[in-house]
């Protein structure tokens, strides 16, 4: 039988990237060119529909802008927030809207063409002025113009993309990924992004094979090309030969067989050969994923990324909207626990581009942003509390870097509890509060943090990024982002020991847990709970059931003495070989 290596070696039609979500798929390429706001001069026949699309896009833009305006007032102050207020007024400008509507009726062109043309005329006037602040003003107007056009196009986009295609794009935002997945997309290929980019995380959770970071794939792939995506090896074959198709068709059959056999593991424990139980929890990004989580045999939700609601809804959810979602989580997982992480906005996630920071990853994100926006934070706390009446909800704070942030948050939680008590609303008075350990300062002081909270969860994605000072989304340095860096392993040990002294629960919810190679090491270091994408849980469970805890402990002890990433990886690979544990990719 020929191997994967042989099929890819010398294949002139192969493109390699990072294996971001497991699975193999054969399908047609759909090129999603994110040349933002490419506006075609399209004629329309249904004027009524065009006008109602415009109304809808304006209403949607107003809704988005209201939230941004509130956020901006809190963060940048009333005075500078005037820019957004003016944008809001533009959405109500009777002269502008009147002209746009009339032009749609007369010229019979798609609304985005008219919106663009009309607002651009004003911008040109502004740019003609000599005053320097006028070019800035033209830029402010650009934002609102783009917002309306984006809302007009999003609607069209949804109906335009055919089903069952492989999306090929330079880059994908979390909201793009969700939009496509709703359209039955079968695979993703992107030029940029790494294993921990949000597009990768989401495709993994939705079980859609993905290869990212291919550098030039979008240039080599044409619309309609047939593609084979191997999400285990990070390889793509463009317009495959018969031989290649045969090879992969067989692999797909094997994969289905493997997945079926893994289903049998659903009700079996994740237990090492020498009887140590490991708790396997699910990371959940989208509510639709709950079913996958339950089918995977997860013992609870270890991480619900609440900021994903923004991607799904297009803006920050109201208290009621949040409460509905959290209630659904709590009741459908009951009696298992659901850990809701407070909104982690900022960094590369849903950054409101209007608030620009030179260094967003070191800026206003996670708990920092929430503490500056008490209104936003408290409305989330209240909706979490109200969903906690079944006593199976936990609440987790992201990006904590100092004890004062924990104390301030706990005070706000107490305030919210008192508000709910006054209103005679039911909630879990002992709601467990925990933190993400993802900033080196917190890792170093794990014990002190553990003394003040009920549980901790290691977020490896950010922890590694801050520890080795590598922006995981930056292609120039992303190869330096190493999960098996000796300093990473030693820091994990430090955290695990700190949590043990305090006797508090500790889990790990970063993408490192999805890397099957890491599992024996993590167990050997003393972790008893892992939270990972639901689709990867069966793969992880299979590995755990082949590992001896005693042997994993010596593996970890050895790895703690090494000085290079390479030594550590070689040692772990040897561990797999010595104990005849086969990695998933070698099974199919």
């Amino acid at each position, binding site marked *: 039988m020929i191997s994967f290596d042989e099929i890819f070696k010398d294949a002139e039609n192969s493109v390699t990237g990072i294996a971001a979500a497991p699975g193999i798929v054969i399908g047609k390429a759909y090129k999603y060119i994110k040349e933002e706001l490419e506006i075609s001069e399209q004629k329309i026949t249904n004027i009524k529909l065009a006008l109602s699309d415009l109304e809808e896009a304006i209403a949607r833009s107003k809704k988005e802008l209201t939230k941004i305006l509130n956020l901006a007032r809190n963060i940048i102050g009333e005075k500078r927030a005037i820019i957004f207020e003016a944008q809001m007024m533009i959405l109500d400008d009777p*002269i*502008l809207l009147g002209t746009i509507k009339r032009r749609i009726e007369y010229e019979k062109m798609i609304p985005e063409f008219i919106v663009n043309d009309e607002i651009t005329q004003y911008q040109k006037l502004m740019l003609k002025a000599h005053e320097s602040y006028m070019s800035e003003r033209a830029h402010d107007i650009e934002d609102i113009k783009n917002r309306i056009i984006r809302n007009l196009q999003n609607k069209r986009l949804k109906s335009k993309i055919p089903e069952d295609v492989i999306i090929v794009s330079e880059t994908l935002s979390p909201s793009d990924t969700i939009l496509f997945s709703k359209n039955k997309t079968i695979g993703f290929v992107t030029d940029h992004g790494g294993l921990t980019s949000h597009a990768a995380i989401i495709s993994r959770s939705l079980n859609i094979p993905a290869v990212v970071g291919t550098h030039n794939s979008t240039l080599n792939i044409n619309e309609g090309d047939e593609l084979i995506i191997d999400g285990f090896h990070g390889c793509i074959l463009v317009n495959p030969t018969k031989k290649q198709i045969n090879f992969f068709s067989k692999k797909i059959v094997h994969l289905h067989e493997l997945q079926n056999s893994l289903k049998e593991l659903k009700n079996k424990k994740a237990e090492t050969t020498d009887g140590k139980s490991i708790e396997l929890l699910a990371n959940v990004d989208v509510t639709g994923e709950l079913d996958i989580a339950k089918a995977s045999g997860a013992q609870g939700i270890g991480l619900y990324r609440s900021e994903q609601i923004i991607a799904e809804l297009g803006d920050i959810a109201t208290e009621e909207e949040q409460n509905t979602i959290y209630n659904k989580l709590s009741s459908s997982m009951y009696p298992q626990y659901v850990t809701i992480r407070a909104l982690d906005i900022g960094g590369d996630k849903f950054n409101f581009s209007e608030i620009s920071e030179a260094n967003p990853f070191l800026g206003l994100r996670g708990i920092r942003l929430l503490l500056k926006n008490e209104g936003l934070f408290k409305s989330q706390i209240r909706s979490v509390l109200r969903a906690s009446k079944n006593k199976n909800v936990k609440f987790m704070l992201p990006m904590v870097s100092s004890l004062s942030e924990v104390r301030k948050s706990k005070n706000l939680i107490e305030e919210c509890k008192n508000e709910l008590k006054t209103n005679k609303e039911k909630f879990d008075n002992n709601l467990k509060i925990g933190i993400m350990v993802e900033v080196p300062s917190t890792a170093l002081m794990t014990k002190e943090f553990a003394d003040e909270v009920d549980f901790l969860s290691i977020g490896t994605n950010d922890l590694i990024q801050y520890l080795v000072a590598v922006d995981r989304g930056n292609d120039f340095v992303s190869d330096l982002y190493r999960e098996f860096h000796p300093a990473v392993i030693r820091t994990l040990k430090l955290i695990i020991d700190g949590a043990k002294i305090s006797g508090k629960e500790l889990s790990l919810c970063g993408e490192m847990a999805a890397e099957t190679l890491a599992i024996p090491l993590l167990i050997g270091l003393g972790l008893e709970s892992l939270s990972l994408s639901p689709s990867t849980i069966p793969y992880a469970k299979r590995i755990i059931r082949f590992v001896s805890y005693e042997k994993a402990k010596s593996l970890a002890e050895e790895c703690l003495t090494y000085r290079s990433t390479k030594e550590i990886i070689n040692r772990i690979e040897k561990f797999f070989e010595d104990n005849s544990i086969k990695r998933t990719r070698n099974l199919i």
Partner: protein
Amino acid sequence: MIAKTVKIINKAGLHTRPAATIVKYASKYLCEFFIQKDGMNINGKSIIGVMTLAAEMGSEITLTFDGKDEKAACEEIAGYFERGFDEL
């Protein structure tokens, strides 16, 4: 119809905040309201229109009001210009 010439006297000129305030005032009235400067004639009830006016301290602007409540409109809006957009 009333026409009135006013001068920009505040330091920052006709920036976004006064532009928004002028439009808010104007939209309360039924009369038509236009702003003329450097050969441009801008409808004063349109925020995007008023924002295209570059008017620094010292520049002169003509306001025209036409309609039943033109007098009251002129009083309030011209007054706002004369107070230097309440920024003096």
